C-alpha cells in the first residue's frame, strides 16, 4: 500500500513537469497552430536562467594566497562571494534562495524571449506546412542547446534547493500511516503545488478575463474574431510569450529536482508531444490530464512486481498507452473535431 502511495506521489510529481511543458506546447499549438519542437529548449533555457542567476549571485572575489600552493605549483585561490561581502547575511539568504530569485527574473525574461522568437522566426512559418515548422523549430532547439553547452559544458550543474526545503518529510503521517513509511522529498512536493498553482492560474486567466475570452474565441474561429476588428495576432503573440514563461518557470523550479544539463529539453520534448497527442491536440485540459495520467502510469510501471510480470514495461508504457488511447479515441482524450484534420 505504502509503495503504491509513494509511486502515486512520484507520478504526480512527474506528471507536474509533463503537464506544465505540455500546457505551454498546447497553448502555442492551439493559438498559432505551430508545432513547436523548440519547446523543450524553452524548458532548458528556463533551467539555465536559474543556473545563470545562481552563478551571478555567487560571483566570487578571487584573491591569491601565495603561502599555499596548489598541487601544480600555482598559488591557491581564495574565493569569497561578492554579494556576501556587500550585503552580509542578507546576501547569503539571497544566494540560498537563488531559485526564487531566478523565478522572478525568468518570467519576464522568457516572455521577452518568447516574443522575440515568435516575431523573429516562428511567424514566418505560419503559412508553411507542419513539416517545415517542425524542421525550423527543431533546428532552433539544437542551436539553443549547443549554445548552452558551449557556455556551461556538458556535465549537469547541481542547483541545491533553498536550505529550508532540503531533505524529506514524512508524508505518510499526514494520511494516518505509520511513521517512516512514506517519506517524500520536500522540494518535489513544492514542485507539485507550484505546478498546480500555475495550471490553475493559466486556466483562470483564459476563463475569467476578457483577454482570455478573446484568445479562446480566436482559438475557435480566428477569422471571425479578426472580422470583429480585434488584432488577434497581437494577443496570440502574447500567448506565445506566456507559454514560454510557463515552460521556463517549470524549468527553473525543476533545477533542484535534477541537476540541469544542456539536453534536458530534448529528454522531455518527445514525452511531452506524446502527452499533447494523448490529451488531444489543442486541448489545454487534455494536456494537463494526460500529463498526470502518463506520469502516474510511468511510475507504477516501474514497480518491481509489475516489472517481473512484464519485463521492460517501464520503458515503453507511455507509448503503449498512447497507442491504445489513440486507437480508441483517435483525437485523444479531450481532442476536438477539426484540429489537425484539415
Amino acid at each position, binding site marked *: 500500500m*505504502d*509503495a503504491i502511495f*509513494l*509511486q502515486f506521489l*512520484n*507520478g504526480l*510529481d*512527474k506528471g507536474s513537469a509533463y503537464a506544465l511543458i505540455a500546457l505551454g506546447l498546447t497553448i502555442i499549438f492551439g493559438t498559432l497552430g505551430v508545432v513547436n519542437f523548440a519547446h523543450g529548449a524553452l524548458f532548458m533555457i528556463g533551467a539555465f536562467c536559474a543556473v545563470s542567476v545562481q552563478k551571478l549571485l555567487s560571483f566570487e572575489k578571487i584573491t591569491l594566497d601565495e603561502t599555499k600552493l*596548489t*598541487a*601544480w*605549483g*600555482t598559488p*591557491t*585561490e581564495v574565493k569569497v562571494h561578492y554579494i556576501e561581502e556587500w550585503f552580509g547575511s542578507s546576501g547569503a539568504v539571497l544566494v540560498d534562495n537563488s531559485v526564487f530569485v531566478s523565478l522572478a527574473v525568468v518570467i519576464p525574461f522568457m516572455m521577452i524571449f518568447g516574443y522575440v522568437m515568435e516575431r523573429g522566426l516562428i511567424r514566418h512559418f505560419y503559412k508553411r506546412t507542419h513539416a517545415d515548422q517542425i524542421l525550423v523549430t527543431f533546428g532552433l532547439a539544437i542551436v539553443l542547446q549547443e549554445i548552452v*553547452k558551449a557556455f556551461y*559544458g*556538458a*556535465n*549537469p*550543474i*547541481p542547483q*541545491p534547493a533553498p536550505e529550508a526545503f532540503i*531533505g*524529506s518529510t514524512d508524508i505518510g503521517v499526514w494520511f494516518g500511516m505509520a511513521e*517512516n*513509511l512514506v*517519506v*517524500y*522529498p520536500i*522540494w*518535489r512536493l513544492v514542485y507539485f503545488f507550484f505546478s498546480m498553482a500555475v495550471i490553475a492560474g493559466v486556466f483562470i486567466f483564459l476563463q475569467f478575463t476578457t483577454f482570455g475570452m478573446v484568445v479562446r474565441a480566436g482559438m475557435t474561429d480566428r477569422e471571425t474574431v479578426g472580422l470583429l476588428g480585434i488584432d488577434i495576432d497581437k494577443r496570440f503573440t502574447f500567448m506565445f510569450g506566456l507559454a514560454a514563461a510557463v515552460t521556463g518557470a517549470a524549468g527553473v523550479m525543476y533545477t533542484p*529536482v*535534477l*541537476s540541469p*544539463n544542456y*539536453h*534536458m529539453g530534448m*529528454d522531455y520534448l518527445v514525452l511531452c508531444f506524446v502527452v499533447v497527442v494523448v490529451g488531444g491536440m489543442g486541448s489545454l485540459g487534455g494536456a494537463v490530464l494526460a500529463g498526470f495520467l502518463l506520469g502516474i502510469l*510511468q*511510475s507504477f510501471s*516501474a*514497480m*518491481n512486481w509489475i*516489472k517481473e510480470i512484464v519485463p521492460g514495461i*517501464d*520503458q515503453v508504457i507511455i507509448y503503449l498507452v498512447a497507442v491504445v488511447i489513440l486507437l480508441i479515441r483517435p483525437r485523444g482524450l479531450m481532442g476536438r473535431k477539426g484540429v489537425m484534420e484539415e
Partner: protein
Amino acid sequence: MSDKNIFTSDISRRDVLKTGAKAGVVGASLVSAPFIISSSANAYTNDPGDAATVKLGFNVPQSGPYADEGADELRAFKLAVQHINGTGKDNGMLPTMKPISLKGNGINGKKVEFVTGDTQTKSDAARASAKSMIEKDGVVMVSGGSSSGVAIAVQGLCQEAGVIFMAGLTHSNDTTGKDKKANGFRHFFNAYMSGAALAPVLEKNYGKERNAYHLTADYTWGYTQEASIKKFTEDLGWNTVNAVKTPLAATDFSEYIAPVLNSGADVLVLNHYGGNMINSLTNAVQFGLRDKMINGKKFEIIVPLYSRLMAQGAGANVKGIYGSTNWHWSLQDEGSKAFVKSFGQEYGFPPSQAAHTCYVQTLLYADACQRAGTFNPCGVAEALEGHKFDGMGNGPTEYRAEDHQCFKDVLVVRGKENPSSEFDLLEVVEVTPRAQVEYAVDNEFFAGGELGQCNAG
C-alpha cells in the same frame, strides 16, 4: 585482410627505405610513401614509411553526455603528444616512466601528429569516426572513449582494420573479457577489480550482514559491474535483495528509488555512470535514504565506479560515499605529481582519471613503438604484451600478455566531507594492492571470446 605477423620482414623493408632515403630520395617522401606501401607485399595499415611524421587518432566524446570527460581526455592527449615530441613546457611523466625508450624527440625519429574525432558516446558514430581516421587520415593508432559500449565497438573495428586500439576510459569486464582483441589494450581497471578492491573496505565499514539493492544501467558495463559487485559482496555474506535495470536514457530515477525505501535493503549500490549516476545519487539523497535506519543499521549508498567529474555534478551528495577509481590527482608518487603539475600548469585545474589513463596509454604506445622500432601493430603488440613498467601513477604495472589488461593497484575512494576546493571532492581511503585485484585468465567473469591473432592490415 589477413592475420599475419610480418614483424621481421618489415624491418628489412624499412632498411631498404632508409637506404633509399640516404640516396637522396628525401623531399618527396610524404608523397611517395603511399606508393611504396602499395608496392610492398609486407606493408601494414598506414605505414608512415619515410614520412617525417606519424599520425595518431584520438576518438573521444566531444558531444553527448560524456563530452566533459571527452574534453579532458583530449587535453591529456595533446599534452602527451607535446611531451613525446619534446615541445611541451616540461616533459610530464617522461622522466618518471621506467623503463623508457622515448627521448622526447618523437617516435622512431618521427614527430607525432594527431587527428581528433567525436564518438558522441554512440557506438555507430564512434566506429564511423574511427574508420574515417584510419582510412582518410592514415592513423596508426586509435585511442579514447568514455563508454564500454563504444570502446568494444571501436576495438573490433581497429582489429579488422589492422591498427592498434589503446582503450581510454572503459570499465566493463568484457573489454578485456569476452570481447578482447589482439590489437586492443586496456590500461584502465575493470568492474571485477572494483568489486575485489571495494569488498574489504565495505566489510570493515558496514559489516558482514547487509541487504543490498542494485540499480543498474541497462547495458554491457552495467551488467558486468552488477555481477562483479554481487559476487564480492555475497562472498562477504551480504544478501542481494533485488537488482533492477534502469534505462540508460532515464533522467529522473524517483520511481526506481521509491521501491528501495521499504524493500528491507540497507545498502543501495548504484551501477550507474556519468549523468545517470549524478541523477540517481541526487534522487536517492533527496528521498532521505542516507538518513534512514533499517534494522538498527544506517542506510548506505555505494557508487562502485567513481569519477571526479561526476562527483562535481553530484555536488554535496557524494559526501561519505565509497567507490573505486583508477587514479586520483591527489596521489603523491612522482609520476602522478609530474602529470598533475604539467596538466595543472597548462590548463589551470587537475586532470581527471579519464585524462590520466589516456595520457598514460599514449606514452605507453609511443614507448612500445620506439622499443619495437616500428609502427607495425604486430610489432607494437609484441612490445606491449607482458610489458612491466612503473612511475606512471599506479605503482608497478603489467600489461598481461594473455588478455591485454593492465594489472596494478586500485584506489578505493570516499566523497570528502570537507572539500578544500571544487576539485578536492574525493579522498583516497585505500590503495588496494595489485595481488588483491588480480584474477586468472580463465576467470568466469571474463570467459568466452578469443584474443586471436594480431592483424597488421
